[in-house]
């Protein structure tokens, strides 16, 4: 039992507790809060943040950071939209592959500079954040992708429902996001590659001396981050339909915030994708809930959100510390008991 309740599980549990408390508090403040339509709004907006948070987590686990994800979302959303507007008959899977391919190529550039050029990731991605956006602005020449130029299936995609549970619709986007994250989490936990990612992030020098291919692992993390950002770009395109050159601006901060709120250590080597998913859920839940509290005007939203994020990490820290202390003291007692007996 305790083997399964490691410190990372405890973190996720404490985060779930924070989420549950906020749902209860908001349901007191807002009439008709626990409704199907609200569930849909939170889950569709969360899907994009969650995919980006997972992408960011893969990179953060290797003790790097990718600040260019917002620009990658913008570039992939725009280019995919542009292609689909000209090729209406494109198969949906091909469109997704196109978006992820463009994202992976941009991630490859980031990863090569970091892993082989030995430039710190924050410098590389701060640079490519500007470079990718600049390229998009030059390429777009002030044209905007509009929803009516896109194929019908794409515009209807966000309304697609996988299954219905009572009054709740599980949207395709949510299902895709959760599936991707669970699959990657399993891979991180079970595959040798996953252990390597954690090893590189925990202690890069030790990993290199063990003979791990650190460069390739870091490069791989950036390419996957780019591909997932491309997937998020596709979701962004289908959700909004209208894509300007500013699309996705600032999403990198949401991604980092979600990952960090989800307990992913910014110093690398610790954290889970499920944690990042919960972090994204908490942030989007707070954002969407605040809009519905009558006392909170639209101007108040950001201020309260910032305060709540601080409160959430501080609370999470306090709960986590207490749980960990309980956990270690109880295991010590057990060990002493077994020695004594």
């Amino acid at each position, binding site marked *: 039992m305790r083997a399964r309740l490691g410190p990372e599980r405890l973190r996720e549990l404490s985060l779930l507790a924070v989420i549950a408390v906020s749902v209860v508090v908001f349901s007191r403040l807002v009439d008709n809060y626990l409704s199907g339509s609200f569930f849909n709004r939170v889950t569709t907006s969360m899907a994009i943040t969650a995919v980006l948070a997972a992408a960011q987590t893969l990179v953060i686990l290797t003790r790097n950071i990718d600040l260019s994800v917002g620009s990658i979302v913008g570039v992939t959303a725009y280019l995919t939209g542009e292609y689909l507007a000209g090729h209406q008959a494109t198969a949906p899977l091909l469109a997704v592959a196109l978006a992820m391919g463009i994202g992976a190529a941009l991630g490859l550039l980031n990863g090569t500079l970091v892993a082989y*050029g*030995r430039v710190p990731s924050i410098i590389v991605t701060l640079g490519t954040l500007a470079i990718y956006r600049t390229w998009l602005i030059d390429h777009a020449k002030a044209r905007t992708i509009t929803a009516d130029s896109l194929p019908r299936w794409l515009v209807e995609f966000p309304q697609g429902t996988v299954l219905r549970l009572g009054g709740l619709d599980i949207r395709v986007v949510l299902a895709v996001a959760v599936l991707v994250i669970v699959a990657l989490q399993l891979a991180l936990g079970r595959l040798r590659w996953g252990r390597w990612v954690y090893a590189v992030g925990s202690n890069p020098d030790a990993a290199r001396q063990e003979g791990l291919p650190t460069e390739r692992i*870091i490069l791989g993390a950036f390419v996957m981050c780019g591909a997932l950002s491309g997937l998020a770009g596709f979701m962004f395109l289908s959700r909004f339909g209208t894509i300007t050159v500013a699309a996705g601006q600032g999403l990198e901060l949401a991604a980092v915030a979600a990952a960090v709120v989800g307990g992913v250590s910014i110093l690398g080597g610790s954290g889970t994708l499920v944690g990042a998913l919960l972090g994204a859920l908490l942030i989007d839940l707070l954002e969407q809930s605040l809009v519905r509290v009558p006392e909170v005007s639209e101007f108040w939203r950001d*201020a*309260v959100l*910032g305060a709540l994020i*601080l409160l959430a*990490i501080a609370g999470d820290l306090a709960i986590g510390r207490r749980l960990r202390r309980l956990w270690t003291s109880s295991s010590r007692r057990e060990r002493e008991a077994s020695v004594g007996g």
Partner: protein
Amino acid sequence: MAERVLRWRTELLLAAILLAVVAVNVSLSPFYLRTGNFVNMFQLSIEKAIVAVIMTLVIVNGEIDLSVASVMGFSAAVVASLHDSGAVPFAVAVLVALLAGAGAGLLHGLFVARMGLPSLVVTIAGLIGFRGAARILVGDRSIGDFPEWFDRLGQEPLVGRFSLALIIFLVGIVVAGVVLQRSAFGRAVYVIGNNAEVARYSGIDTARVKLVLLTTSGFVAGLAGVLFAARLGSVRGNLAEGFELDIITMVLLGGVSIFGGSGTLVGVALSILIILNLRNGLGLANIQATTQTGIIGALLIASVLVPNLVVRFGRRWRRAAPEPGEVRPIQRPATVDTRRKE
């Protein structure tokens, strides 16, 4: 002597880049060398340069403050809303705004220094939160009609050709440089940035240093916000939005390690000059501001990549073991994956 040259390797490289940029600019446009152009060039980004000075100290200390642009917006919004309500004399409003900036920094500092939360996370929350606070105060209005002396302070030179903001920048960078290089506090900033554990064991009050730096960072950002409001003559909720990237670029291009513990204000001053001259030259060559940002991004990457490659290929050429007593070039701690030094 050789050692001394190697120690200032980054700064020498930056000086060479600066000379190249200036040379290209001179050949590009006859307007470049006019004094009016130089004054103008500084005037347009002076608030960012002011904040970059304190950001240098914060990053050398191994922390980061992503909230500066939002705190700029927040303090400007405080001035504007107090002026708009007419409750207090304008000078008092300015004073309150400066205190508000320091208060914002103090709040971040308490979370980082006392609770031990990473500054990256705390100041991301601050970035969202204080931007929100600015929006609450200003709403979707644009508040202007400030007293004439305030507008003039922001828009006209105060002494000779120097505006108040420029004087604050020059005094600030000299004071900060002396504090960083010549005082016990400055040494503590470097030591903590190099290795916080060692610093703690050697009796440095790391929490206090962080608290002081983050509070000062908030105060300086607040000051820069008020100066920006004076220069623009009006305040909106999105004032200075997104400036944090430019400010951090100024610091990192100056050779300050993002992992803390190394970098000088001389490097940052050179990097500010490079960025200003580059933007100015590109502007004179009719290249748009967005493209300029992309070029500066590429320069940022190149400034670390090129020396890395030179060192690596240089080593490949002379594979021989180092002579006893040989001075190896001091490398920046720019290895790919040491976010924190052991």
